[in-house]
C-alpha cells in the first residue's frame, strides 16, 4: 500500500510537470491549430535560465528560487513571443504542413544553438529551493515533489483565472472559437496570439525548472522526450481544452510512473505513445474534447 502511495506521489509530481508543458501546447493549438514543436525546447531554455540564475541568487532559499523561477518565466515568455513573431507569423494562413515543418525547424534551431552555447554535455542543476526529504509512515516525500505540485497547481489556477475572467482571456477563447468572427468584433488577433505564446512559454519555463529540480541533470536535448509526452497529454485530455491538458498530464505522469515501477519498466517510453494511439483510435477528440464533424 505504501509503495502504491509512493508511486502515486511520484506520478503526480511528474504529471504536474507534463501538465504545465501540455497547457502551452494546447493553448497554441487552440488559437493557431498547429503543433508547436519548439515548445519542448522553450522548456529546455527555461531550465537553462534557471541554471544560470542559480549562480546569481543564493542557493537553497525560497526567495532565491522564486526569483530564478520568475526570471526564467519572463525570459521564456519573451522567447516564445519572438518565435511567434519571426517564425510563425509570416506563415499565418499557410498550409498546416509548412507551419509544422517551420516549428520543427525552430525546435532544431533552439537545440543546436543550445548545444553550441551551453555545450552538449549534461550539467548538474543547482538546488534552487531548500530541499529536504521526510519520512511519513514509510512514505518518502521530498520537498521538491511538494513544490512541484504546489507551483503547478498555483500556475494552473492562475491560468484558469486569466482565461476565464480577464478581458484578454475572453479574447483568447474568442479567437480559439472562430478567428474571423473574433476579428470582426474588434479583437486584435496578433496581440492575442503573442500573449498566448508568452503565457504558454512561461508555463513551459516553470515546467523546465521544476523538472530540473527533480531530475537535476540538464542538457540541450532534455526537452525532446518530456515535450513529446506532454503533447500526448494534451491530446489525451482533448487538444485545445485547458482543463483537459491538466488532466491528461496528471494521468500520463501517473501511468508512466507505475509502468516504470513494474517489470515492464524498459517500455516506459513507449507507453505514452501506446496511450496516444489508443485514445486517437477510440476517442479522437480526447477525454474532455468535443468531437466535431468536418463539413464540406
Amino acid at each position, binding site marked *: 500500500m505504501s509503495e502504491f502511495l509512493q508511486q502515486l506521489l511520484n506520478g503526480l509530481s511528474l504529471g504536474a510537470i507534463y501538465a504545465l508543458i501540455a497547457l502551452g501546447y494546447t493553448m497554441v493549438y487552440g488559437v493557431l*491549430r*498547429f*503543433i508547436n514543436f519548439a515548445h519542448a525546447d522553450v522548456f529546455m531554455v527555461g531550465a537553462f535560465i534557471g541554471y544560470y540564475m542559480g549562480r546569481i541568487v543564493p542557493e537553497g532559499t525560497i526567495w532565491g528560487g522564486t526569483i530564478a523561477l520568475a526570471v526564467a518565466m519572463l525570459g521564456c515568455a519573451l522567447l516564445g513571443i519572438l518565435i511567434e513573431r519571426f*517564425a510563425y507569423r*509570416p*506563415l499565418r494562413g*499557410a*498550409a*498546416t*504542413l*509548412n*507551419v*509544422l*515543418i*517551420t516549428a*520543427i*525547424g*525552430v525546435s*532544431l*534551431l533552439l537545440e*543546436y*544553438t543550445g*548545444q*553550441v552555447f551551453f555545450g552538449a554535455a549534461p550539467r548538474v542543476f543547482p538546488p534552487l529551493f531548500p530541499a529536504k526529504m521526510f519520512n511519513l509512515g514509510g512514505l518518502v516525500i521530498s520537498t521538491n515533489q511538494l513544490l512541484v505540485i504546489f507551483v503547478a497547481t498555483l500556475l494552473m489556477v492562475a491560468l484558469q483565472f486569466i482565461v476565464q475572467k480577464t478581458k484578454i482571456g475572453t479574447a483568447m477563447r474568442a479567437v480559439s472559437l*472562430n*478567428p*474571423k468572427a473574433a476579428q470582426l468584433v474588434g479583437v486584435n488577433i496578433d496581440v492575442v496570439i503573442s500573449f498566448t505564446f508568452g503565457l504558454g512559454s512561461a508555463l513551459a519555463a516553470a515546467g523546465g525548472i521544476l523538472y530540473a529540480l527533480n531530475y537535476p541533470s540538464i542538457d540541450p536535448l532534455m526537452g*525532446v522526450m518530456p515535450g*513529446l509526452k506532454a*503533447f*500526448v497529454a494534451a*491530446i489525451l485530455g482533448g487538444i485545445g481544452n485547458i482543463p483537459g491538458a491538466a488532466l491528461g498530464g496528471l494521468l500520463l505522469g501517473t501511468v508512466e510512473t507505475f509502468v516504470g515501477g513494474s517489470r515492464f519498466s*524498459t*517500455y516506459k*517510453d*513507449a507507453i*505514452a*505513445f*501506446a496511450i*496516444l*494511439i489508443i485514445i*486517437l*483510435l477510440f476517442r*479522437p477528440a480526447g477525454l474532455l474534447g468535443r468531437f466535431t464533424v*468536418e463539413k*464540406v
Partner: protein
Amino acid sequence: MPKPHLALLGALLVAFGISHFSGAIDPYHLDVLTGVGINVLLAVSLNLVNGFTGQFSLGHAGFMSVGAYLSAAVSLFLAPQLFGDLTSAGALQQGLAFLLALFVGGLCAALAGLVVGVPSLRLRGDYLALVTLGFGEIIRVTFQNVPSLGGALGLHGIPAFTSIFWVLASVAIAIFVVTCLVHSTYGRGFLATRDDEIASAAVGLNTTRYKIVAFVVAAFFAGIAGGLYGHFKQSITPTAFDFAKSIEIVVMVILGGMGNTVGVIIAAILLTLLPELLRPIAEYRMIIYSLLLILLMILRPQGLLNIRGLSPRKHPS
C-alpha cells in the same frame, strides 16, 4: 517519361557500370554516395505517402529500422544455414543471400506498414503525423527490448554486402515503381485522395485503401533502405532510427516539393551533402541547417524545387 521500362534498364546498366569502376573512386566519396543513395531511396518512398497521397507520416525511420533489423537478422542467423559460411562463399551466393535479406527486410517493413496503416490512416493531418511518430517510437523501444536482436546495444558484425551497385539499383527500382504507380490509371487515385478526399470518396474511390497501399509500398522501400543501411554500416543500433531521422526524411520531401519526384531526389542529395560540405564549420552546421529550413518554409512554402507549385488545400476555418 515516355518509356519507363527502358529508363529503368538504362539506370540499372549505369549502376552496373559505376560499380565496375568503384575501385577507382575515392572510398570517402563512395561512402558519401552510398549514404546519398539510401537517403534518396527513403525520400522517394516517403514522397508516395506525403507527397502524392497527401498523408503526413512522421514514422518512416521506424519502417527503416524494421527492414534494417530483419535483413540483418537474415544475414547473421538464417543465411549461414542456407548458404554456408558467407565470407568464403562466392559472389553469386553472397548476392543471393543479400537479395533474400533485403526482401525479407522489405516485406517485414511492408507488413509493419500495413499493421500501422490500417488503424492510423483513419486519422488526418496533425493527428496522423503524431500517431505515425508514436508508432515509430514504439518500434524503436521494442527493438531496444528484444535481447536476441541485441537490445539497446544493437546488432554488430553484419556482413558488408552493400555496394554502390545495390544502392543505385534499389534507387532506380524505387523511382520506377513509384513513378509508374502514380502515373497509372489506378495511381491517379493517390493524387485524387490528396487533392480532395471528400470529393474522391464521393465519386466512389476507396480513399482509405489508396492510403494504405501508399503506406505499404513506402514502408517496403524504407525497409529495403534499412537493409542497405545495415549492410553498409555493418552495425545498427535502435537510436539510429529515432524521431530525428524521420524528420530528416520528411524535410527532404518537403524541400523537394511534395509530389515532385525529381525535386525530392535533388533535395535528398543536397541535404545529405550539405552536412558534409559544412564539415569545416561543424559546430554551426546544424544551426545553419535549421535556419535554412525556417527561411525556406517562409520564402518558398511550395518547396525549393517545385516550379509548378503544389496547390495546398486551404481549409475553411
